[in-house]
Structures are given as structure tokens and as C-alpha cells.
């Protein structure tokens, strides 16, 4: 929907959308490689402190120390290595929390949209109640309750964001269920569950994939926000949100402690959402 709807038709738009997909997907694959290889390619130990090397600037600024490419934070930890290790947490949360949220939300949406009746009333009411919660506060509350750690963050994201899938998938499943092909499948003797899985699900799947991609970007942000308020995971592994929180407090002394993790987070979130929007254009036959 982003700029595709407004930019009009034509091959130029198609090429631009393709480029956007490749750039976003490429960057995410690159970050995935960095995250997987972090223990071997990170130049320093991300947790090693050296108070004599605190707040070293990045390599092109005077006073930089060779080997610390993007400088160090106030405890003398290497910013580049911490960003590489932080990518592990960010992507792990994106993939696991995104997939789980998708699975639960889409299932509930399909059930509500296709079967209607009590299932729909219960699930729709649940969605209404959920929409009345401030999501950031709710996630902070949940993680504070469960206690910090990766499982808590993932659980908080699933508990809060299932409605994003359920709302959209419910509406789509409802629209599909009213179509002739569904009726003819039923007439041809398929059961209700069979119709749902074999006829409706494949038609709703493109929407689910787009939502999943967007959700991964949201999960990355939620993890960053939680570690920003110091509720993410214990300090034994670096997170971008934690680095940003530290950078925010020493912003006037060492801008690089904030800037580099912020750039990493910004690019990853932008990539996920551009990938999602690009896929939406690809899948939507009207736009194509």
C-alpha cells in the first residue's frame, strides 16, 4: 500500500518495486549471516570491558584506537562487536516471535472468519478488548511479570500482537467463505475443515506472508523497546535496545554509542517493512 498505490501503473514502478524487494531481502540476508557468524567474525569480545579504552571514537575521528572500528562505549566495550552480537537477539526474536504470533493469530482468524457463530463472537470480543490496551505498556507489564529473558519477550509479543493477524485474516476468510468456489467445494463433498485448509487457506496465505514479514519488523522494535527500558535479557548478551539506552544517556559525550546501533536497528526495521510492502505488491493481482 505504501507508495505503490499512489505511483500509478507502468513498468517503471514494477522495476522499482523489484529493486526494493532485492535491497530489503539482501540486507536481511546479510544481517542473518552476520548474526550467525558473529562469534567468529566479531573483532573483539562484545562483553570485554577495559576502562582505559572507554569512549573511544570511531576510526575516522582523531583519538581512535586501531581495531575498534566503530569506537567503544563508556565501559570500553567494542561497539562493532556488540552490534554484531545484538543482531543475533534481534533476528532470533523476529523469526521466533513473528512465526509464533502468525501461527496463533492466523489460526484464530481463520476459525472466526470461516466458522462464525460462537467462535467468531469470542474471538472478535477478544480482539476488541486487546485493542483497548496500550500495546507498549502491556508488553512492558508482561515482561516485568514473567521476568526478563528471551522467552518472556517472545511470549509478550505473541500475547499482544496475535490480533494483527486475527483481525485481517478473519476478514479475508469471511470474504473468501462467501465466494462461489467455496460453495462448490462443499457441494463436491468436502468437509468444513477440509474446505478451510484446501480452499480458503491457500487464498489467504499471501496476506499471511505479508503480515508475517511486517510482524518480524515489529518484533525487532518491541525487543529494542524492552531492552531500552532495561527489561529485555540479562546483560550477558548485548542488545541493540540496551546499547541505544546507554547511548541516549551519554549522547553528549559519545554520539557513536547511540548512532551505530540506531542505524542497525533502523535498517533492519525498514528492510522488514519494505520487504512486506514489496511482497504485498507482488501478490496483489490488481496492483500488478
Amino acid at each position, binding site marked *: 500500500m505504501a507508495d505503490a498505490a499512489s505511483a500509478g501503473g507502468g513498468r517503471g514502478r514494477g522495476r522499482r518495486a523489484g529493486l526494493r524487494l532485492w535491497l530489503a531481502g539482501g540486507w536481511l540476508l546479510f544481517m542473518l549471516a552476520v548474526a550467525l557468524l558473529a562469534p567468529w567474525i566479531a573483532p573483539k569480545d562484545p562483553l570485554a570491558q577495559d576502562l582505559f579504552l572507554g569512549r573511544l571514537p570511531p576510526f575516522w575521528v582523531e583519538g581512535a584506537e586501531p581495531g575498534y572500528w566503530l569506537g567503544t562505549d563508556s565501559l570500553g566495550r567494542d561497539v562493532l562487536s556488540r552490534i554484531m552480537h545484538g543482531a543475533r537477539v534481534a533476528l532470533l526474536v523476529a523469526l521466533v516471535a513473528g512465526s509464533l504470533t502468525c501461527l496463533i493469530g492466523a489460526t484464530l482468524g481463520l476459525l472466526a472468519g470461516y466458522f462464525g457463530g460462537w467462535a467468531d463472537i469470542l474471538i472478535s470480543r477478544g480482539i476488541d478488548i486487546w485493542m483497548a490496551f496500550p500495546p507498549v*505498556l502491556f508488553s512492558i507489564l508482561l515482561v516485568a511479570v514473567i521476568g526478563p529473558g528471551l522467552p518472556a519477550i517472545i511470549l509478550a509479543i505473541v500475547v499482544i500482537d496475535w490480533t494483527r493477524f486475527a483481525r485481517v485474516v478473519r476478514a479475508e476468510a469471511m470474504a473468501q467463505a462467501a465466494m462461489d468456489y467455496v460453495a462448490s467445494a462443499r457441494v463436491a463433498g468436502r468437509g468444513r475443515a477440509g474446505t478451510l485448509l484446501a480452499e480458503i487457506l491457500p487464498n489467504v496465505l499471501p496476506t499471511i506472508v505479508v503480515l508475517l514479514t511486517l510482524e518480524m519488523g515489529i518484533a525487532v522494535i518491541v525487543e529494542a523497546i524492552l531492552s531500552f527500558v532495561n527489561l529485555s535479557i540479562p546483560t550477558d548478551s548485548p542488545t541493540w535496545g540496551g546499547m541505544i539506552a546507554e547511548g*541516549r544517556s551519554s549522547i553528549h559525550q559519545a554520539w557513536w554509542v547511540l548512532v551505530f546501533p540506531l542505524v542497525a536497528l533502523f535498517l533492519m526495521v525498514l528492510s522488514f517493512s519494505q520487504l512486506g510492502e514489496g511482497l504485498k505488491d507482488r501478490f496483489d493481482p490488481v496492483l500488478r
Partner: protein
Amino acid sequence: MRLLRAILLRLATSAVTLAGVAVIVFVVIRVVPGDPVSMMLPPGATDDDIARLRAFYGLDRSIPAQFLIWAGGVLQGDFGTSITNRQPVLDLVLGRLPATLELSVLALGLAVLMGGVAALTGTRLRGTRTEAAIDVANGMALSVPDFLWGLVLVLLFGVIFPVFNISGRVTPSLDLPFTTNFYLLESILRLRPDLVADLLSHMILPALALAIPLAAIIGQLLKQSLKETMHLDYVTLARTRGYGENHVILREALPNAILPTLTLVGVQFTFLIGGTVIIERLFSYEGLGNLAIDAVINRDLPLIQGIVILFAVIFTAVNLIVDLACVALNPRLRHG
């Protein structure tokens, strides 16, 4: 009659939603592992002291009993006592609410302004590079949430070009004559431009961070509606009657294109208010959101409950107003 029934039904749904929120938040925070009472007492406290304090806060009863006592109080306007501040929750929360409301409304104003200008400029200059640039900027603004825009703004206008304040609500050393907590509103009414300037210099960056994603949504939808309206016969008629392009867009197309955008703005406004929680934290702005995060970190159960309920009331009220406004503004719905 039918309208009245629709309104009553809508009110009943809102009440069910709020009750649901109350139950969920109550159950969720009763699972908190840390004991807030033992943190309040000095190290030498006896078990007897702890038990007495637990009884004082009603924490020694079963969860359903606690809920009934609390819900009964809430219905009479008593939200309990904050464990960390030892003040009535309602006083604390209402004391902070004006700061959050001022910030949210300022952000909404900025979003409408920016989104509106973007949509109108894009429509006026359709097919040019300016339109393409606006579309790209819109896409970017939409892809990145308020938290990240806040950080970018902190860097840009707090550090690289330090023109605005990046923390707090007002410079504390100034002479502050306020009798209410609506600082901005009161400064305007008291005709104190110095205070207005100081407040805005603190509020502008958090408000912008909240406004950017909403501005993008407004800009996109309004431009889309304008585009559709511009092809309608009556607009073509206005053109053939010799009116200029500006007149056609502003006077003929805009009034008809604006309704879907207004509906969307209402719904999106609740998302903006939800965003204040982390944005206030980021800019150390003394509002409800910042209070909420402190309450969570300190495990201040009564305060957390009060704040979440208040947010839910605000969200539900905004949605209700939007729905009713749509009915009032749209004749087809009114008689349907």
C-alpha cells in the same frame, strides 16, 4: 429510535471491553513474582509487620475477592493507594494526564498539518518529481515507528543541531505560576510567550516523533481520496466553469474527500496515545507513560492497574466518539 438503540448497543460493547481489560490486567499482575510489600519495609521488619501491611493493601485475600474489592472501589472513583508513592492512585494519574493529553493533541495537530500539506501538495503537483518525492518520504515515514523517529530526532536536533530540548517538560529554573497541570494551555491563557516557547521547545521533538507515522498515513489516504474525487463529474464541471486548480482542489475536491481520512484519524489517534508510553520515556517527559513504566519497574500494582484502566478508558472513549461522529456526519448511516 434506531439511532438511539445503536448508540446504547455501542455503549454496552464499550463497557464489556473495559470490564475485560480490568479483569485481564488484574489477573496478569497478580502473577508478579516479586512481593511489593517486602520491598516497602526496612530490613528489620518482622513477619508480623509484613502480614499487617499485606492485609492493609488487601493482598492477603484470594484473587477474586481482591478483584471485587478493587472493582467496587473503582466504580466509586477509588483506585486504591500507590505502594511506592503512598498517594491515592487517582490523584497521581490525574496529575500526570494533562501532560500526556497536551503532548498527544499537539502531535495530532502536527500530524494533520504535515499529512494534509503532503496530500494537497502531492495532488496539486501530480505527475511531477515533487509528487514522487512526497510518496517516497511517505513510505519511509510509514515504515519506521515513533520510537525510532524519536531517537533520530534526539540525534538531529538534540546533538547535531542542538536547537530543542531533549528531556523534561519545562525548564525547572523558570518561574512557574501554574495552578493546573495543563502547562501549555495555561501559559497561552496567561499570555506568557516565554513559557509557551520553553514548553514547545521541550514538546516539539516528542510530538514530532509521534506525529511522523500518523502524518504519513493521513497524507497517503487523503491523497488517494483526493485522486478519486478529482475524476468526479462535479469537479470537472467546476474546472470547465473556469475555476483555477487551487480552488478546485481546496473548495471542490477536499470537502468530499476528507470523510474517510477523518474516520481513520480517530482510530489512529489511539495508537498515537499508546505510543506516548515509550516516547515519554525516551524524552524524560513527565507524563502518564513515564509514570507507568516507573510503576511497572517498582511493581506498584495499584498504580499499574489505574494507569492501564485509564488508557483503556481513553482508547474506548476516542473510538466511541469517532463512531458516533461518523454516524452524525454520514447521512446514509444516520437513516440506515
